[in-house]
């Protein structure tokens, strides 16, 4: 097991290196005259030169790249071109917010999605049709549209509580809960649809397996076979979908945070993109890629617990 984790970690580090190198080179090659873009057309050639020197842009690309890489392995991603704030500080202060949102969503998704999927697979008929309709809607309607709808509904019509803003979990748990509930719902509906459809499909497929009949013939009740044996076998494919959903949710959070005015990674991602603040964009790329690598390893370990064949190979 330890060897397995180490091997996956090594592969993850290599992948992270490849992704960040590729991103760095493409970003700087594609960017053109950066200092001119920052200063605008009115700036003099001298000012542009000065800025280039200050940002280190007068050095060759590869030199800059190795400099960046050397800093990056120690956690130093440079500073924002616009605020001069260190990139790492800008990101870490906001990462926790986004993560609390995404992890909350994944937890809700796993529970509700599995329950809906099992319910549809078990009862078929009307339950099945309901879940299928929910799946279609959840899959088709983008999360940010749901977010807009929720803000609209609560801000304009219900006026129950302020639908936007954010209270850190450390300040007040109930406050945190009241601010993340709507964003989590907005994010979760699509993910729940995907998980429910997957669980429904794999439970139905697994129920058709020969060994289900054999276990039942040994005197085990249908529920026991379903919850102990079928769910475990159906869990593997559902986990794979959950991993994909997690990655998608990281992206979805960018837009949803904007709508609910939550100070996560979303606002700085949008802002740095609009301004062309490449050090900050690079920092975001590396941090999200690292998150994806970690999540995939966690999912693979969980998969190994469920499936003995995966454990061995």
């Amino acid at each position: 097991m330890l060897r397995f984790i180490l091997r996956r970690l090594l592969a993850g580090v290599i992948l992270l290196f490849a992704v960040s190198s590729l991103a760095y080179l493409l970003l700087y090659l594609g960017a053109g005259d950066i200092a001119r873009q920052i200063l605008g057309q009115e700036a003099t050639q001298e000012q542009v030169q000065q800025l280039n020197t200050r940002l280190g842009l007068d050095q060759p690309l590869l030199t800059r790249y190795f400099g960046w890489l050397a800093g990056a392995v120690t956690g130093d991603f440079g500073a924002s071109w616009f605020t001069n704030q260190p990139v790492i500080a800008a990101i870490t202060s906001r990462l926790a917010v986004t993560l609390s949102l995404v992890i909350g969503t994944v937890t809700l998704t796993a529970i509700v999605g599995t329950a809906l999927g099992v319910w549809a697979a078990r009862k078929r008929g009307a339950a099945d049709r309901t879940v299928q309709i929910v799946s279609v809607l959840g899959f088709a309607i983008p999360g940010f549209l749901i977010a807009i709808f929720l803000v609209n509904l609560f801000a304009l019509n219900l006026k129950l509580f302020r639908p936007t803003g954010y209270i850190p979990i450390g300040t007040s748990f109930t406050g945190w809960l009241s601010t993340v509930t709507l964003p989590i719902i907005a994010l979760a509906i699509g993910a729940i649809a995907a998980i429910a459809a997957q669980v429904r499909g794999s439970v139905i497929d697994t129920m058709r397996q020969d060994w289900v009949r054999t276990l039942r013939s040994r005197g085990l009740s249908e529920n026991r076979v379903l919850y102990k044996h079928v769910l475990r076998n159906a869990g593997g494919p559902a986990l794979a979908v959950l991993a994909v959903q997690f990655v998608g949710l990281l992206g979805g959070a960018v837009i949803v945070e904007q709508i609910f005015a939550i100070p996560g990674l979303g606002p700085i991602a949008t802002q740095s993109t609009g301004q062309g603040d490449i050090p900050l964009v690079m920092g975001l790329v590396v941090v999200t890629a690292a998150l994806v690598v970690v999540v995939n390893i966690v999912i693979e370990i969980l998969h190994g617990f469920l499936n003995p064949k995966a454990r061995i190979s």
Partner: protein
Amino acid sequence: MSESAIIPPTEVATEVRAARSHIGRRILKNPTGLAAIIVLSLIVLSAIFADLLAPMSPTTPNIQEVLAPPGEGGHVLGADSAGRDVLSRLLFATRFSLAGALWAVLIAAVIGVTSGLIAGYYQKFFEQFSVWVISIIQALPGIVVLLAARAVVGPSLWIIMAVFGLILSPAFYRLTYAAVVGVRNELYVDAARVAGVGDLSIIGRHILSVVRAPIIIQAALLSGIGIAVQSGLDFLGLGDPNVPTWGQMLSDAFSRMYQQPLLLVWPAAAIAFTSIALVLFGNALRDELERAAGKPKKRRRGSAAYTPDTSGPAPVVHAEDREDGRPTLLEVNDLVVGYDQPDGTVKQVVNGVSLKVKKGEVHGLIGESGSGKTQTAWSILRLLPAGGRIVAGTVFFDGKDLAHLSEKEMTKIRGRRISYIPQEPMSNLDPSFTIGSQLVEPMRVTLGISKAEATKRALGLLARVGLPNPQKTFDSYPHEVSGGQAQRVLIAGAVSCEPDLIIADEPTTALDVTVQAEILDLLRELQNDLHVAILIVTHNFGVVADLCDRVSVMQHGKIVETGPARSIFKDPRHPYTKSLFDAILEDGAARGPLAHSADRNMLEEGAAR
């Protein structure tokens, strides 16, 4: 599988028509599919003819008309925060949003399908390379890549959506790759190769035809995602302000939500309707495809339809050779088993079977595929697949009618009183649990014994069924043992709770001949020791001859002949039984050497080692 004689001509005719009618035509008959196509066509048409339909310019601001309500100043849907006509903007936004999404999907399809075909057909290097490229593409959420791209190339709809196409391409790649790998290992591709068909021709004829429809489905679903992502980016204000899109309209409306909430409705509705229509279209197409394919690989048991007829001639009954004093254990009377069809009818697969199994006897139920023998066995255990049920008849076991017991009472009978040995040993063990736990769990549940006690008994049973190292097998997972060993494990499971009757469904069919002989020996020994009755379902007369005291021959869901095994083998009377005996090759003469080379054979026989 049955010969043509039992497929009624009408069924063939409807099948032919169903297969012949093109998938495109069938989706029009699917109500969801038709509705989706109509909605999509209307949306596409309004995008194409936006110039003609739009009453005003979508981009000219008018300060007097800022946030005009619908109907005012000739603005059918009102005006936005810059006083631009909402209807006109909506029409042009439809054009650009759709075009952006389709552009991304087109790029994704071209890259994904081409690389999938190459990697799938030639594998090796291409495959390795693709795996790496995909893991790099998927190391980041799509939005983050798009934001990074936006940071350097600026607000260009087409470049950004082209990048998104690249991000989507693994979806097409995977689909194509899986289809190609699946198809290239099909025997019909081997046959085409042996027939001299070239690679390109094989890809075109056998492979592209398989992936075409799934690609369309994938494209429909991904177009929806493309629309969502494109709108999302524009909503964040990262799009080109000179190109009206749904996302921009939404962004503008969101900022004026408190003043004119109605503005949100139009772009939101456009996005929602288009996305839902795309998903429904994809789903309908998939449903039709699945229906058309009809799962050709799964040989549906008893797929031939019979006229529901439980009367007919009575079976030929042979006299018992001696007075058999053993009491009856299982008595099946006029059993009818059917499957509920989508159209409300019931397809019968067992048409009135009656049979008796005495205490401690081995009863063979023999017949060809589709005769209903397995269905009969499963209905005694009340473990028919979904949709199947006992339509009529009784199954008396030890004084109780199993056909009418509650599920809870039936669960108590299974394992403890009647147990089951399946046909395919490898697919009948749960792959996620150790063999030991699959033996221990039923004993604990049905016998109520402790885990330690059950473990001890399980190890004893594994030794009893001839496994050389019981502890090792106990700790193994199913994929770690051979087919013969797995069948021994399943036999151990069947006898673990000391049942009175074992239903064995073709217990040796999936095994090699030498392993079959060992399993038959084991079954005979266990039967002698435990005095358990066995109802053995088989198509093999050798197995019947080896094990059975009595035999029932099944054809078309009915018993046609029944009696003591020796009597039936000596004197088969029903024409069907006779025809089966005639088809047996075992007793036939060998073909003998090739006539004109007999002399050479003599020489070679000596040469062979």
